[in-house]
């Protein structure tokens, strides 16, 4: 029954193929450390990290998911509660980049509609082994209207920035919602647009 020591709690999720470095990214962010030994995540781990954004203490609860193929179905059940999702690929692994589309589809199917997303091209310190250019990463992010960043958990490039940007985007949304006169409005609009085609047919 510990008292809360934060103003806001954001739940974030790390997803992506096995071995792209999700756990390392989290470890770098939470413990500012890196280990090169690969231990496959068998389940869902989480770490917390409190950041100060715009004078608010924001507690990030970051869930690290198992990337292995056999767990894909089961991990999708964790998408629902997430407010932000980091979708990670490995710039030295073409397949992991190609799968981004699949992961995005997964998000569409299972996550909250208004979840904030960000694509991370990890291992950007390994320039000599790069197979996915930064431009391709940017292109796919642009195509889906998602933030993008290249990161390196090993060299500590952009890790903190990525999380803070994602958190900030969620904060924008949250505070926008608080100040909105009618918080229900968005939902109502959506329902109307769903009905729109049928309605038009009737009129035509």
């Amino acid at each position, binding site marked *: 029954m510990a008292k809360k020591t934060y103003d806001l709690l954001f739940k974030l999720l790390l997803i992506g193929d096995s071995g792209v470095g999700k756990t390392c990214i989290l470890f770098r962010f939470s413990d500012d450390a890196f280990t090169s030994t690969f231990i496959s995540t068998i389940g869902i781990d989480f770490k917390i990290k409190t950041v100060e954004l715009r004078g608010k203490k924001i507690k990030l609860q970051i869930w690290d998911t198992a990337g292995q193929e056999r767990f894909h179905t089961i991990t999708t*059940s964790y998408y629902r509660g997430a407010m932000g999702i980091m979708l990670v690929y490995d710039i030295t692994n073409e397949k992991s980049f190609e799968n981004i589309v699949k992961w995005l589809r997964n998000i569409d199917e299972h996550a909250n509609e208004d979840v904030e997303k960000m694509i991370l091209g990890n291992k950007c310190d390994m320039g000599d082994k790069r197979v996915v250019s930064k431009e391709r990463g940017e292109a796919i992010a642009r195509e889906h209207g998602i933030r993008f960043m290249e990161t390196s958990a090993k060299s500590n490039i952009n890790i903190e920035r990525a999380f803070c940007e994602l958190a900030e985007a969620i904060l924008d949304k949250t505070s926008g919602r608080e100040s909105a006169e009618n918080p229900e409005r968005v939902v109502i609009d959506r329902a109307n647009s769903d009905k729109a085609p049928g309605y038009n047919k009737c009129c035509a």
Partner: protein
Amino acid sequence: MERGSLYPNGADTSAAAAAAPEKTTMSIVQQRFKADETVHLIFEAYQIRGQEHFEGLLTLVSSASGGTYALISFSLLRTPLTASNELKINKVFPINKTFQLTTDTKGSISEQQFDLSTDDDRPSKYYYHPIRTDLSAVDFNEFCAKINSCKKAMWEAELPSETTLNFRWLDDYREIGEVKQELKKRQSQYIVYKDIIVYCATWNVNNRPCWDNNNSLRPWLASGEKAPDIYAIGLQELDTTAKAMLNGNQMQMYAAQWIRKMVESVHDGVEYEELQSVRLSGIMLTVIVRKELRQHIVRCRVNSVARGMFNALGNKGGVAVSFQLNEAKICFVNSHLAAHMTYVAERNDDYKAIEDGMRFEENGLLCRTINDHDHIFWLGDLNYRIQEPNGQQRPGPMNDAQTFELLLQYDQLRTEMSHDRCFKGYREGEIKFAPTYKYDVGTDTYDTSEKQRAPAYCDRVLWKGKRIEQLAYNSVMEIRQSDHKPVYAIFRVKIKTRDEAKYKLVLSEVLKAVDKRENDNQPQIITERTIIEFGLVRFNEPAMRDFNVYNNCPQQVDFMFKVKDSPNDICEKWLHVDPQSDSLMIDSARSIRVRMLVDPTSITGLLHKICNTPGKCDFDILILHVRSGRDIFITVTGEYQPSCFGLSMETMCRTNRPVGEYKQDEIKQLMVDVTPEYRVTMPREFFLLIDYLHKQGDQLKGIFQSYDRRQPLSSQFNAVRDWLDTWSEDEFPGTPQTAAEALLLLLDLPEQALLEPFVEDLLHSRSKSEAMELIALLSAPKRNVFMHLCMFLREGIERHDYEANNVAAIFGRILLRTSKSNVTLDYQNLCSQFMRRFIHVDSPDTNAGGNGHAGGANGASGASGTSGASLQA
């Protein structure tokens, strides 16, 4: 305390334990508390959460500093208890006026239970065992009796009046924000002390309105060179005439005018604003602050305590303003205490009443008192007089320091303070001014009226707290419209202030440390393995695997298997996990058993899963959840040995060798195949069973009596399964009963009913010929099986081996199975009716569409010729 073993059956009766200084549970518990806190008793009580019960201890503790009792509830991280760090506080119940122990057993699972509640919290339920296990613990009656006596002792006993009962000591046992606590600990790293000037002023205005004043208030309020940061101005006798006191509006107006006048009269050259005023009848306190200071002031509260007549009128009493400036809590009190030379004790009482009664609301239940502030300034007409030694004349002219010194020797306030009878801990600066009371109004002459009141230092400014330095303390002679002279005092106060840059640094470090602690303290368990390999699993053959989970973290860990979305259970139907949840004490392990059984109720689901999983299909993935921690995926895997049971007629017709020779993956290929290419017209397994049954003649009497998929299978079933799955040439290994059982399962287990996709239409068909048109549209294997079956059944009915209605009911329900949840009687009747049409001996169109099906079943079986022929006969 207690001798002997802690727990009668405990392990600590060893020689080593006996040699060490004896530790009773009571003494271990006592170690959790401070030196001035005493554990009076311990009581064994447990709590129930979900299905589990958690052993705990309730301890009655008192604090010498607070003068109060409380019950503290611990959970035990280890039993028997060996050290005080194995006690975890889970709740604190101050035994205050709202504390309640209730033993309402209504709707409870046990007589041995009670509720504890205090303040606005929800009651917490506790249970206890009829017999205590720990000899240093008390029984329930003693427990209740002791609590009651404590309650009495605290609230009814006469206490020395200085003691204020409080529960502040409990804060150390309540969890307060970790970040806050940590920041407090590291205060010295970011706290700096900033000088501010505090100007205190007091004046008994003797009912004179402010416009009566031709003189400016400036000599009183704008003395000193440096512009003050904070003014606290106390007035008394604003208007104490009965008329004014009964007219609130008029008083309000007076007060407002005074405030305006005072704000106008403060130091020049600096912008000030009124922070807050508080008035109790004629006693008013106004706090004025520098404008730029305002934004640094938070939690500003006011309150008043009325004294005087009936303790309510408020012609005497005190008012106070409390606030926090940066990190410093500051309190100003203005009081007007009891008058008259002889009323010293009353003045002391008034002081105490104000000190005890003044409360500033913090948040809901919590209140701060005057003494909870860092810097306290107490000013006002305290009314203490110069005690006149009996028969002595009043001193002569009073304008030199020596006289003041002499007078002050007889000052009642100083005398009372030196005896600690009032204003304990307060200080006062040196008085180098003449007594401020009582003057003839408009003059500097002491009372010349009949009463000839003795001059006195009624008007004072006192302070309490650290880092306060008095710069000036004086009266103002030239303000003459009252019988009192105004008094002021100027202070330099070093107030606690946060260095923002340093604070930010410390905060980020604290956040990091607190996060790290939370991450490191996450409850953890280790699983012996995350893949449970069952190897080859066969239909109707139970198997099990055990694996261990350990708690290797320094706290109790609760774990449970999570209910998944699909299936809506912790595991698939063919699995059983035990236990589904448990608690692990430190360093303990638990074995978890996973049982697997693919039986008639689960085979369909498993085959469905195999077909619908791309790639290799695991039997299941369990989610092992650690409360407040991670989830671990436990993969349950193995290889299912396909059997004919559960396969569709179409799949069986695609096999080119016995099913038992197929692997899980190979059979999956056949199952997902939708082409209408079949190797045989009718599954050989089905044909073999019918053939066997057909040959049993009289033996068939009384079979097909009943059927229920959930019934346990007969002991010979697995032999029959192997016989079918190997296309064995041996003799049938069972009885006609087993064959009948196998036949029904063969028809019942496939995902789709035999007569799908036409079940609905067939149920509502009005004649056999109408039904036949639909049956002709079934896949060849299904159609052939159906016709062959009907002929076989008809023959039996003809021979009176079994009864038509019964058979129609049993087979109808299987062949026309529906996935609809509500199976009505009507539906069952329709099923039977449909079947009767096909198996009734006298049915007029028996042969319609039936030709050739059975005979064409297959040429592979040597028996087919004879059986086919006889069935067609």
